[in-house]
């Protein structure tokens, strides 16, 4: 599944030691790995606003999220009042959802993993799949182009045989300073299914960071999910209790 999308969510929080730009520019796998490491920090704390435009209208949610390593993440919605308190915890291979109105923690069953996350264009499995794009795909550098003053690599990633990936291929645009600019998901017939675009890159937490992202599906023109990062802190100390079920239900 589209691991980059998850990284995007994480990058809301993400951070990592900025890798020195070693001369690996021509190895597409290494470029993606570097981009991945660039976003991922040992830990992060991010506040972002998610705007969902659907067929029924537009709504905005503010969320606060923490990540640690590649397998722990907690996202808690803090506004508006209607959605505040809803939280999603990813810990290892398990994903839990907390609903304050039910006061219940639910471990998501398999069938629910591909459902929409909070009504957005992201699914729960977008949140949980981690390094799949880097490890389970074969990468080819299609083109190196200059775009608004930056070198941009266009990489085609095709799933390795036998890997549980539905996509036919992905096309990823990465800036030379390892910021992901664009990610396109194609079906197995080569038709574009959905696209994630970086609308704005700013320096945040001491690194170039894509602060505005838009995810949209070809099948639903005019609808999208946009995530705007408001503040971010990277490589901070996060207490270990944060990523527990009890903290999901009763935040300290």
């Amino acid at each position, binding site marked *: 599944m589209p691991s980059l999308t998850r990284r995007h969510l994480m990058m809301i929080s993400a951070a990592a030691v900025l890798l020195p730009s070693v001369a690996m520019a021509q190895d597409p796998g290494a470029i993606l790995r570097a981009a991945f490491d660039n976003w991922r920090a040992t830990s992060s704390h991010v506040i972002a606003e998610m705007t969902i435009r659907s067929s029924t209208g537009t709504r905005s949610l503010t969320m606060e999220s923490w990540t640690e390593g590649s397998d722990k993440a907690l996202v808690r919605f803090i506004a508006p009042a209607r959605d505040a308190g809803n939280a999603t915890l990813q810990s290892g291979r398990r994903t839990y959802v907390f609903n304050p109105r039910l006061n219940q923690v639910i471990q998501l069953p*398999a069938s629910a993993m*591909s459902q929409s996350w909070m009504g957005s264009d992201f699914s729960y499995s977008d949140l949980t799949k981690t390094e799949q794009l880097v490890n389970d795909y074969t990468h080819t550098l299609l083109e190196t182009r200059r775009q608004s003053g930056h070198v941009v690599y266009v990489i085609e990633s095709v799933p390795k045989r*036998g*890997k*549980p*990936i*539905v996509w036919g291929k992905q096309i990823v645009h990465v800036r030379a300073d390892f910021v992901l600019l664009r990610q396109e*998901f194609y*079906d197995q017939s080569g038709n574009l299914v959905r696209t994630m675009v970086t609308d704005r890159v700013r320096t945040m937490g001491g690194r170039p960071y894509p602060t505005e992202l838009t995810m949209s599906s070809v099948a639903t023109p005019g609808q999208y999910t946009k995530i705007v990062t408001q503040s971010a802190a990277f490589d901070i100390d996060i207490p270990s209790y944060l990523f527990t079920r009890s903290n999901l239900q009763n935040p300290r």
Partner: protein
Amino acid sequence: MESLKLLAPLAWRNLWRNPRRTVITLFVVSVGLWSILAMASFITAWGQSSRDATLRLLFAQGQIHAEGYLDNPNINRLMDPPDTALLAALNAPEISNWAARLELPAVVRSEYKTLPVTVVGVLPEAEIRISSIPQKLVEGRYLSGPEDDGAIIGLNLAKRLKTALGRRVILMITAQDGWLEERSFDVVGIYDADTAFEDTYIFTGRAAMQTMVGLGDEISQIAFEVPEDEALEGVIASLRAAAPAHDVRQWRKLSLIMGAMDASMAATVYVWMSVMMVMISIGVINTQLMAVFERIHEFGLLRALGLKPAHVLVLVTLESMLLIGLGVLIGMLAGAATVWGLAGGIDLSAFSQALEAFKSGEVLYLEIRPMDYVIFPLAIWLLGVWVALWPAWRAAKISPVEAMRHAT
């Protein structure tokens, strides 16, 4: 008895005093009975054909599961392959074929959609003998062996997933360690059954599926085919004796809906019969009342000549017995003629799209069930005569004086 000898020829001749009216009544009765008989044959044939088609699809006449699997089908309620005792019982001559399968709930995912399904791991050579799915492929090929990790999916499921032959789908099945196992399967074949079935079942090789979810040779189900319905009870009993720890059931208990449908087919005929009864009754009462009112003078004369009221009642009742009896005979002949006329079978393939929902086979073969030709004619005859007692009673009440005063 003496009076009956006198009255019977009189009644017969009275019937033909107004031939047109008699013929119309005969027509109503015979068409009514014919429609009941023809419908009974058709419904029976249809029920049998659709039942056979459904059982032939996958379910067979009976199945063996581990105890509790049917209440909660999951990977923790599997069973080992049949042991020698069960094998001996399964190879009995009453059982024509059997197949051991691994059937588990799963989730299938394509680029566009994620849907809940049931995955069935099969042994292709056994499946070809017991199930009609291998013959229902419209694209691609069937599985080549138990190790074949291709997927056979339904036409409608392919449409809903927006996938096609040769493309990948991801199957997610809860494995034995409790984790969700994901694996990509190439769609190697697409079958065409009814849409509800197509949306539910995906087939793959049994060994390939066992490997995927971390199993040895465990199975979830043994389906067995018993061609003779009469032998089914005995087969179930012998299988239960051979595998006392398992849950052995015949199809009526496996699919309560099918069992209920089987039982309700007969009820449909009776509903139709009561509708026809009402129509026939109205026809008979109308004719006989008319006949009585036209003959008030005549009844008065008969009474004056010495016929008792009871004799008049018997006379009119005899008339209706003969009238309805004749109609019933014609109806029976017409019903039998219809069945014989359609002995070559009714080809439903032209309507197969419309009838798909009813899961019927494509050609119906009607047959005469002797009991239908006893029960329905007798019921119609008796009920018809019973309602005709009213006009007869009216006729018996006529007194000679009244009749003479009656204006013609």
